[in-house]
C-alpha cells in the first residue's frame, strides 16, 4: 500500500475513533468518507488480492451478511461492515487494517452495488431480492435491476453470482453472469414482480415456479433450495436450525450457504456455524430497558413486514409498532397501506414513533385495536402495564414484541445491549 493510502487509512481511522468518543454513532461513515476523499482508489486497493463476497438486495442484507460471516469464520477472522454502513465509506473502514489473506463479506446498498463491485472485484455476489423501498428517494426498483444487469454483462467465471431464483427481478439481473448458482430462497412479496423485466409481459406465479406469458423468461431450476424447512443442496438435504426466526431468514441462510460453498465451506459446516447467530445488529435480539424487556424487529417496507408477521409471538404478548419518516426511512408513509395489517386483528397494538399517527389511521381502517402513545418510552410503559395485567406463560420470555422501521429501530436499540438472542 502506498504512502498516500496508508495516510488515508490512518486519517480515516482517527476520525472514526473521535466520532465514537464523541458518541456520534459507530464512526464508520465519517472515517471512511475522509479516507476516500484523501484517496479515491482506496477501496479497490484494500480489496486487491483479497477474497471478497458482496451481499445486496432490498431486504435481508445485514442478516445474510452476518450468516455468511459466521460460515467463513470457521476458518478464522473475517472482515465485514457489521455496523450496517453499507456504502463505500463503510467498506473502506471494514477492510482497513485487516490482513489481505483474510476474506471479507460486504453488505452493499443496492444502488451502490455496481460501483462497489467494480472496485472490489468480488469472488461472489449474493443477490437477495428487490422490491419497493423508500421510493421517494430511490426512484424505481426497475432502474436498480437494469444497473445490476449491466454490471454483470460480460462477467465470465468471476464473480460467481448467488441469486434468488424466486425473485424474477433478481433472476433477470443475474442472468448475464458467466456463472450463477440459482437458489430457491422464496419470495413472500410479489407485488413488485407482476411484469416481466425482460419483455414487459405479464408474469404468472405458482408454487415453486413463475413464468412470463409472452417470452421464455421463467424461474431457473435452483441448485440450492429451501423446502419444508430443509435446504436441498444438489440433492443433499440439510436441516436448517437457526436461532433467528422466520421463513425469510431460512431463505437468507440458503443463499448464504450457497455463497459459503463457492468460497470453500461445506454446506453442512456453514449451516452449523449459522446456528450461533442470535441477533443481527439488534434485530431479533431481546433488549432490556427500565420500562420493559422486548424482542426487537426491523421492518422498513411492505416486503419486510409480510415476513415479520410469522415471526411475532402469540397474541398474548403486547405489540408495539414504531414508525418514523425521516430521510433514511423514506419521507412517504404511503407504504403502510401496502402492508396487510388486518393480520393483527385480535391483538392490542401500541403505536408510537414520529409518524405513529399515520399508522394509527391505517390500523383504524384495518379494525385493529390500538392506541397511539407519543414517545417511545411512554409506549413501552403502556404496553408493559398491559402485559402486567395479563401475565402470560414463560417467565423468561420478553414482555413485549416491538417492530420498528429504520430510524425508529435505531432509537430503540440505541441505549441497550442485547441480553439474549433466542428463546
Amino acid at each position, binding site marked *: 500500500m502506498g504512502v498516500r493510502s496508508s495516510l488515508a487509512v490512518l486519517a480515516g481511522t482517527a476520525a472514526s475513533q473521535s466520532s465514537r468518543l464523541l458518541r456520534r454513532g459507530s464512526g464508520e461513515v465519517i472515517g471512511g468518507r475522509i479516507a476516500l476523499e484523501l484517496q479515491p482508489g482506496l477501496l479497490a486497493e484494500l480489496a486487491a488480492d483479497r477474497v471478497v463476497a458482496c451481499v445486496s438486495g432490498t431486504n435481508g442484507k445485514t442478516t445474510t451478511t452476518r450468516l455468511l460471516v459466521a460460515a467463513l469464520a470457521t476458518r478464522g477472522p473475517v472482515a465485514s461492515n457489521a455496523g450496517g454502513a453499507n456504502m463505500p465509506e463503510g467498506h473502506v473502514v471494514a477492510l482497513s487494517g485487516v490482513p489481505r489473506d483474510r476474506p471479507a463479506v460486504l453488505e452493499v446498498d443496492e444502488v451502490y452495488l455496481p460501483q462497489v463491485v467494480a472496485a472490489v472485484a468480488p469472488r461472489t455476489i449474493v443477490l437477495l431480492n428487490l422490491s*419497493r423501498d423508500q*421510493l*421517494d*428517494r430511490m*426512484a*424505481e*426498483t*426497475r432502474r436498480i435491476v437494469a444497473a445490476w444487469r449491466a454490471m454483470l454483462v460480460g462477467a465470465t467465471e468471476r464473480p460467481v453470482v448467488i441469486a434468488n431464483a424466486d425473485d424474477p427481478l433478481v433472476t433477470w439481473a443475474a442472468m448475464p453472469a458467466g456463472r450463477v448458482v440459482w437458489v430457491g430462497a422464496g419470495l413472500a412479496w*410479489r*407485488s413488485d414482480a*407482476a*411484469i416481466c423485466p425482460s419483455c*414487459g409481459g*405479464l408474469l404468472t406465479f405458482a408454487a415453486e415456479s413463475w413464468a412470463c406469458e409472452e417470452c421464455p423468461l421463467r424461474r431457473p431450476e435452483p441448485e440450492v433450495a429451501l423446502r419444508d424447512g430443509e435446504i436441498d443442496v444438489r440433492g443433499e438435504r440439510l436441516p436448517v436450525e437457526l436461532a433467528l426466526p422466520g421463513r425469510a431468514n431460512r431463505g437468507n441462510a440458503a443463499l448464504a450457504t450457497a455463497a459459503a460453498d463457492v468460497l470453500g465451506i461445506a454446506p453442512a459446516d456453514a449451516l452449523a456455524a449459522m446456528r450461533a447467530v442470535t441477533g443481527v445488529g439488534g434485530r431479533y435480539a431481546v433488549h432490556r430497558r427500565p420500562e420493559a424487556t422486548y424482542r426487537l424487529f426491523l421492518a422498513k417496507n411492505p416486503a419486510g413486514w409480510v415476513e415479520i408477521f410469522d415471526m411475532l409471538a402469540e397474541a398474548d404478548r403486547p405489540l408495539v409498532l414504531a414508525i418514523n419518516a425521516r430521510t433514511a426511512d423514506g*419521507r*412517504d*408513509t*404511503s*407504504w*403502510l*397501506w*401496502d402492508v396487510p395489517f388486518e393480520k393483527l386483528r385480535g391483538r392490542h397494538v401500541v403505536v408510537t414513533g414520529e*409518524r405513529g*399517527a*399515520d399508522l*394509527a*389511521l*391505517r390500523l*383504524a*381502517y*384495518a*379494525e385493529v385495536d390500538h392506541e*397511539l402513545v407519543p414517545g417511545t418510552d411512554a409506549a413501552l410503559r403502556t404496553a408493559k402495564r398491559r402485559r402486567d395485567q395479563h401475565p402470560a406463560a414463560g417467565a423468561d420470555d420478553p414482555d413485549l414484541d416491538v417492530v420498528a422501521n429504520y430510524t425508529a429501530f435505531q432509537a430503540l436499540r440505541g441505549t441497550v445491549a442485547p441480553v439474549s438472542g433466542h428463546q
Partner: protein
Amino acid sequence: MSDSSVAIALLYPELLGTYGDNGNATVLAQRLRWRGIAAEVVTVAPRAPLPTGEIYLLGGGEDDPQRHVARDLAEGGRLTAAVEGGAVVLAVCAGLQVLGRSFATGEGRYAEGVGLLDIETGRPPRDQQHKRAVGEAVVEPRRSLNLPMLVGFENHGGLTTLRGHALPLGTVRVGIGNGTADRAEGVISGHVVGTYLHGPVLALNPALADMLLGWVVGELPPLPDDTVDAAAERVKAIRLEAAGLTTLGM
C-alpha cells in the same frame, strides 16, 4: 352486482399499486360498512374482464405496467361504457395518466390512453426533467366541490395538460401537481376524478371519499363514531406541517 351491495372494483393492483393506493378501496368499503351499507371490493387481475361496479379505482405505478393497464381498459371500451352508465372513477398518478388521450412512457415515446379524460401527459421541459415531483402536496380543491384542503404525497415525472371539459380538481398550494403554469392539480370530469396525491388520498381526505360515495348512494348518514376521522385529522395536521403550512394558516 346485487342491489344491496356497492361494488368497488380495484383495477389491476399488481400492476398499479406502488404507493399504497390500494388502500383507497379499503377506505371506501369501510366507510360504507360502518354506515350499515354493504360493500364489496372486487380485485381485478390483469387480463380479467372488467366487472360491473359502481366505483372503479386505479392507482400509481411504473411505465411498463401502465401500458398493460391502458390496453386492458381500452379493450371493448368497457370502462367508458361504465362511466356513461354512471360509474364513479378515482384514478391516482399513473392511473390518472392512463385515462387520458396519451401519456409519455419513456424517452420521447407516447402511448395511447383510454381517452376517458380530455388530458394529455408528457414530460416536463428537458431542463427540468431531473426534478421529479416528490414530496408533500397540499391542494385547494375547486370551490364548487365544497371540500376542505386536500393533502397527500406526490411522486411523479409527468406534465399533465387539461383540455376541453376536463377541469382541475384543485390548485396546488404546496407541491407540483399537474406541473402546468396555472398550478392545477388533478382533474375532474363528471364523476371521474384524477389526482397525483398518494397517501392513499382517500384515507387522508375522508371528505373526498364521502364525495365519491355520495355520488353512488346519495346522502350519507354520519359515521357511527369519529375515531377514524379524528385519526385522519391528526395525520393531516402532520402533513400540513411537513409541507410548511399550519392548520391555522388555512
